[in-house]
């Protein structure tokens, strides 16, 4: 079966800070903007690759103590984050466990409180833009 089950293990680092143990979910859409190169000679629509237009959304459990999620993300709002690293599982990089690096993305907003009685607090954040590279070298 061609499925991947995430029981645990997806690595998530914002810069040098490892937030793996606070990550509930993450989705990185690796997107290349299609540019139309349609001409009068074309017989159908066609495209060439434009710029990358990536987006990473993540859900994290929220904690306000030192060296936790709030302390990590709050100073980054309104800034370009040099690197965010994701990896499907812990262990060495390989073709089947690539390290995915999002460089130069922008964090526009952070829900600084998301409180519901009787529930663990989480925040949904979105990193916009940047360039995705894949590292499969152990």
């Amino acid at each position: 079966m061609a499925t991947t089950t995430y029981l645990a293990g997806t690595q998530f680092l914002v810069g040098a800070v490892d937030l793996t143990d606070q990550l509930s979910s993450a989705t990185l859409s690796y997107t290349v903007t299609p540019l139309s190169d349609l001409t009068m000679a074309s017989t159908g629509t066609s495209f060439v690759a434009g710029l990358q237009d990536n987006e990473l959304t993540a859900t994290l459990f929220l904690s306000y103590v030192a060296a936790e999620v709030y302390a990590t993300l709050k100073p980054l709002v309104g800034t370009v984050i040099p690197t965010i690293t994701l990896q499907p599982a812990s262990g060495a990089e390989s073709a089947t466990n690539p390290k995915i690096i999002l460089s130069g993305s922008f964090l526009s907003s952070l829900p600084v409180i998301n409180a519901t009685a009787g529930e663990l607090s989480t925040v949904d954040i979105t990193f916009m833009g940047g360039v995705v590279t894949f590292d499969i070298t152990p």
Partner: protein
Amino acid sequence: MDKYTIVSPRVGKVGAEFVPKDDAEAGYLLIGGFIKKNSTKSTAPRAITKDDNAEVSASSED
């Protein structure tokens, strides 16, 4: 160059030296409580001595 020690396991082994990529990263991690700056030799000015006070008094009389 300033040296830093890791105090949060989120950035590495606690107690190990942390080498930031740049000042911005170091500042950000310091504020967040992930690393601490190693103490350096004090650069406080030399304490005023009795002789120094005598010199000041002498010069003010001129």
